[in-house]
């Protein structure tokens, strides 16, 4: 699907590491080159045409993001450097001032480091308690299990919509409903969800959402922090500086701008934001539902084929996203990745930044294939054929 839009796909390469980052279509690359070539001015600064165009393009992306995730207000969309920065801002700028010793935060063991470490630090700093929602046999989060661990002390649930190792799609809407009935905030790490299916923040009713442009055909170094306006108003800027202040005379007289500018200190990644806008238009044109369906079909095709191979142990047979995680018996995951690399197939080996997951799954390292809409059935055939010959893997892994 849409392969002709991606310059790299003209090469002999099979790219199955889309959870790490996606490929970039030519329209996004061109849009960024256009900024650097034709109007490379700063935003919100100059009173001249070039700079005005920058403002327009930059703010157009904000409009596009707002529509894309169906936010209520434009001020709810803050540009950051990515999911990691967004999550750190949420934890340090909103929850650190709010939470008190003894308050509880619910996470899961399959979270990405970016949704664990900021909470670990806060736990050390303020004595809040971290608890994990137990995962079921498929490593899923269920509402029943969530009910078991919500207590009167629970203040926050911070989880990924789709995890980057198991690829399970969490029942976010039900989680938010239960959370809000118990006066609990929900932080959604959307890094793997927003690129792959429709995410409607109003419908889901999440309080905060974080995601990255680079996993959805956009550039690196750009992401979004979404927060409900009434909450975002209380998020203290972790960065202070140019662009975000109204006026200042001395330490007791600092006046900051309104949202969202208040949370965007310094010169932003302007080309990135503008390129991101183009990526959103591109995805919208294909349609998020089509993207989701395509990945679902490709995944099923891959799983059905892998199930026939006795020496392949699939970790997440039951899962609905484009992520397939497995091991080849008695072969270290990295050796499998090196073997496939010899045939220009890019897959990831390792623990995928979910270092505490091993306690639940019992394996440290896996091979991960992550699919996006531009992958094809032929590419999967190629992959499966290479994986089907155990002796060949052993022979060629070094």
């Amino acid at each position: 699907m849409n392969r002709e839009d991606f310059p790299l796909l003209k090469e002999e390469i099979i790219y199955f590491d889309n959870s790490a980052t996606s490929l970039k279509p030519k329209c996004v690359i061109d849009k960024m080159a256009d900024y650097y070539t034709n109007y490379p001015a700063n935003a919100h600064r100059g009173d001249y045409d070039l700079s005005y165009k920058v403002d327009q393009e930059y703010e157009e992306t904000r409009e596009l993001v707002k529509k894309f995730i169906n936010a209520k207000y434009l001020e709810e969309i803050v540009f950051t450097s990515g999911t990691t920065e967004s999550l750190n801002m949420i934890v340090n700028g909103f929850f650190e001032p709010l939470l008190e010793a003894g308050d509880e935060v619910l996470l899961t063991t399959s979270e990405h480091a970016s949704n664990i470490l900021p909470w670990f630090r806060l736990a050390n700093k303020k004595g809040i308690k971290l608890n994990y929602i137990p995962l079921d046999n498929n490593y899923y989060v269920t509402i029943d299990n969530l009910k078991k661990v919500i207590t009167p002390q629970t203040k926050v649930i911070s989880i990924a919509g789709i995890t980057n190792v198991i690829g399970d799609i969490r029942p976010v809407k039900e989680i938010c409903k239960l959370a809000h009935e118990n006066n609990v905030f929900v932080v959604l790490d959307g890094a793997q969800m927003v690129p792959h299916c429709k995410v409607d923040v109003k419908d889901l009713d999440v309080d905060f959402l974080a995601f990255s442009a680079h996993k959805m055909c956009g550039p690196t170094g750009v992401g979004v922090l979404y927060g409900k306006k009434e909450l975002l108003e209380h998020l203290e800027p972790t960065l202070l500086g140019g662009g975000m202040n109204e006026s200042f005379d001395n330490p007791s007289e600092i006046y900051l701008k309104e949202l969202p500018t208040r949370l965007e200190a310094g010169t932003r990644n302007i080309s990135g934001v503008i390129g991101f806008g183009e990526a959103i238009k591109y995805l919208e044109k294909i349609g998020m539902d089509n993207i989701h369906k395509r990945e679902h079909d490709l995944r099923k095709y891959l799983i059905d084929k892998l199930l026939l191979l006795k020496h392949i142990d699939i970790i997440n047979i039951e899962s609905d996203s484009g992520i397939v995680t497995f091991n080849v018996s008695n072969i270290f995951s990295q050796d499998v990745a090196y073997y496939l690399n010899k045939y220009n197939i890019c897959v990831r080996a390792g623990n995928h930044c979910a270092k505490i997951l091993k306690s639940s799954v019992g394996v440290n390292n896996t091979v991960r294939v992550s699919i996006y809409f531009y992958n094809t059935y032929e590419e999967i055939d190629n992959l499966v054929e290479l994986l089907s010959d155990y002796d060949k893997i052993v022979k060629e892994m070094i």
Partner: protein
Amino acid sequence: MNTEESRQIIMENYLNPQNRNHPHDGYQEVNTRNVSCIDNINLYIKWNNNKIEDITFEGEACAVSISSTSIMIKNLIGKTKEEALEYIHEFYKMTNGKTFNKEMLQDACCYEEISKQGNRKVCANLPLKGMEKAILEKLK
């Protein structure tokens, strides 16, 4: 050493590595891992004054790291700290594509070619980095 010979040495040492076990008391312990990949190895070294009397290891790692650990263990037992450091530096020269002392490295020459592929240099160097750390600690 040709590719097939190298491959054989690596596979032999990967499938039946030297001294993969937890040691008795009296061993120096050092962990070695690298940021870009997932190999994670513990080395245990028994010293007799300045001499390496024994080395064992435990851990999870790829074929290149495991075999490299095994070969290093075979080659370093009996050496002094200074001799071991010299060996380690020759090994780094090899994996950096420089001229090196083939006689000193013996079997370990099998990584000359493979260390040119992607990240494999890091895997081959991994146990030597750990050993170097252990020796430098002792020399302090």
